């Protein structure tokens, strides 16, 4: 047992760090640092810089444009991006549909879609959830009926993140009502420009626009856009959802938030001195740090086990807790960051970069504090709520 990074890993970390420092445009850095929302142009610019370097999707197999890095290097890479903070690669293409295509898709699909994902030529969004199908995803109702060389899709998807920017959506659709509900589902790739698709924003409590409803009315999708076999989509969906283990805990992100809390708490005053000098505040921050250090080691245990065993076997039991603890810690940081702002958490401000030239009320970093707190309530809900995660652990790990 040796829990230090090897010399090679340290050299790699420094290489990533200096590449980010040299390549990340300053205006993007200032926005990620402030905790602003993803901007389409920022994402495209940054993704292309990474892709140019060959780092568009490091975890992909080399033949499709990956780097051949093992799990530890992949982890270090993502952690450095988050800590810097640079935008993390858009997950819908590189983590979700990309691996499904190179694992289950045909040659034509691989050839067409994969390079476009790497370069963010196509912005993908995820069409899984429906109004009646949240945690019980397999109950989805959006129908695709075969009609000659097309499927005709009718139904509604919801919680579709950043669909307003998307060129393509990958959808789970019902192609059969026979047998178990999991057995009649197919995995379809749909061009967002197809007639009959209507995207409507969902206003969320943080005041931002991240999620949407996507309506499908007689949308004609060519049959060559079916991935894998008809009625086997549930298998591909399970593969997709189980795929992301290397960085699910988002340790780098939380480290960056902690650094930010420390920075802002030394500028905000409380009781006539910087808030960071307040004993109770420091204890709150230390409590998050301790939890995060434990989580970092848990994440590294999972990564090291995966590096040893390859990506194929059963995940380490510890991996199931990464989503739960990771989300709790992310929420704790956004909560404490809001607390740092005191009364300046209150004013509803037009956020920088959203077309307002009005001076900010209070310090210019105050406007994002409460929205960030509100927004991050989502992390214990998406990808399977923390309660669902506990059900999974109870069954799969504890055998209850």
């Amino acid at each position, binding site marked *: 047992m040796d*829990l230090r990074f090897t010399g090679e890993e340290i050299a790699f970390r420094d290489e990533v760090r200096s590449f980010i420092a040299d390549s990340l445009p300053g205006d993007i850095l200032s926005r990620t640092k402030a905790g602003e929302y993803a901007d389409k142009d920022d994402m495209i610019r940054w993704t292309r810089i990474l892709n140019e370097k060959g780092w568009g999707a490091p975890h992909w197999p080399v033949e499709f444009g990956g780097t051949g890095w093992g799990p530890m290097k992949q982890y270090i890479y993502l952690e450095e991006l988050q800590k810097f903070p640079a935008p993390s690669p858009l997950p819908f293409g590189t983590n979700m549909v990309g691996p499904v295509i190179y694992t289950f898709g045909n040659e034509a699909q691989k050839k067409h879609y994969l390079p476009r994902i790497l370069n963010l030529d196509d912005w993908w969004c995820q069409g899984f959830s429906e109004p009646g199908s949240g945690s019980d995803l397999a109950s989805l109702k959006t129908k695709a009926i075969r009609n000659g060389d097309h499927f005709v899709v009718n139904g509604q998807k919801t919680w579709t993140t950043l669909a307003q920017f998307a060129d393509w959506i990958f959808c789970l659709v019902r192609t059969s009502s026979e047998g178990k509900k999991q057995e009649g589902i197919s995995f379809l790739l749909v061009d967002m420009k197809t007639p009959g698709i209507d995207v409507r924003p969902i206003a969320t409590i943080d005041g931002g626009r991240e999620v949407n409803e996507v309506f499908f009315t007689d949308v004609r999708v060519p049959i060559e856009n079916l991935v894998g076999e008809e009625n086997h989509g549930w298998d591909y969906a399970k593969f997709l959802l189980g795929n992301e283990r290397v960085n699910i805990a988002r340790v780098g992100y939380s480290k960056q938030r902690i650094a930010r809390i*420390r920075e802002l708490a030394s500028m905000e005053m409380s009781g006539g001195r910087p808030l960071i000098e307040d004993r109770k505040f420091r204890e709150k921050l230390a409590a998050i740090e*301790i*939890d995060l250090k434990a989580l970092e080691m848990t994440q590294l245990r999972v990564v090291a086990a995966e590096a040893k065993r390859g990506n194929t076997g059963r995940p380490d*039991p*510890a991996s199931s*807790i990464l989503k739960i603890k990771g989300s709790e810690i992310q929420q704790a940081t956004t909560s404490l960051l809001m607390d740092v702002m005191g009364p300046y958490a209150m004013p509803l401000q037009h956020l920088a970069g959203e077309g307002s030239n009005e001076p900010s009320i209070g310090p210019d970093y105050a406007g994002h504090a409460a929205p960030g707190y509100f927004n991050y309530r989502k992390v214990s809900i998406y990808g399977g709520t923390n309660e669902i995660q506990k059900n999974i652990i109870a069954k799969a790990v504890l055998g209850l």
Partner: protein
Amino acid sequence: MDFDLSEEQSMLKDALSRLLSDKYDFDSRNQVLAGQEGWSLDMWTRLAEMGLMALPFAEADGGLDGGPVDQMIVMEELGRALSLEPFFGTIVLGGAALRLAGSGQQRAALVPQLADGSLKMAVAHTERHSRYDLNHVETTAHKTGDGAILNGGKSVVLDGDCADKIFVTARTGGDVRDRQGIGLFLIDAGAKGVTRRGYANQDGRRAAELTLENVVAEDVYGDPDDALPVIEWIAEQAIAALAAEAIGVMSVMHEITTEYLKERKQFGVPIGAFQVLQHKAVDMFIALEQARSITMYATMMADNDDADERSRAMAAAKVEIGRAGRVCGENAIQLHGGVGMTMEYSVGHYFKRMTMIDKTFGDADCHIERLAAMGGLFGQ
């Protein structure tokens, strides 16, 4: 980065685990607990024969050259068995004092006696008003040439009732809470002027109250005027060991609770079918795995000679262990219901040990305050 045990370490773990499950099951342990000594000389001898007492010492001193990972393995297994033997006082604390503060000559004199199990030791640091502060020392050491005469009292000296020799912290100068002016002295437990009152703690482990009246110290370890840094390091190595023991204790609590949820039926179904209880069991699992992770981190830092970095790490580990221990222990009792409250059933014994681990070398509240005062874990 490598989380795996070496082949030798796996063998050590298996052998120790086998010995304890063969000879030290719950009923045998209860008999030991009810006995006169409160611990088993037979088991002590077996542990020594296995080489555990020699493990943490350098080969040159008569040891087996083990490191913090070996200590982690041993402590986790002793935790699983709720071992009552004076290993913590003798090898974890006494051994650390010898390794970190002892000269070559001092080590040469005592390591062989520790290694064969013939010598039992303890470290006496707690006083009536010290709470968890190692720098709060009222016991005095009056220097006489190259020796010292000790006066004062020490409390809750772990494994102090059977120890043959005891390390005592005492003040050679300065005020009661000064960091300077503290020395580490070795006394013979039978020396003139030593009054010892032995007793059992809540968890069945043994301890003692010591009164020292003009006791002539047998030896001085380290700088008699500036031994606090090394005393802190000894305590920090003990924290890493306690964390590993706690992992053993929590693992068993989690295992037997999960089993109980599968066996116990109410309303015609195993109670583990109820989601409310499942989630509590998962909370225990998460706490255990997070504690295991931070224990690995603490183990990695135990030998680190950067005192600042090491102190932060150990404070963090002690907080996580204390908090995780509560989650595991309190839920273990709750999920068992009434039977968890009985002395006849094992889970309560684990809960009691876990609770006392939190009180050893600083509880979670104490260490989070320390860590916050040091500027946190990740620094500026």
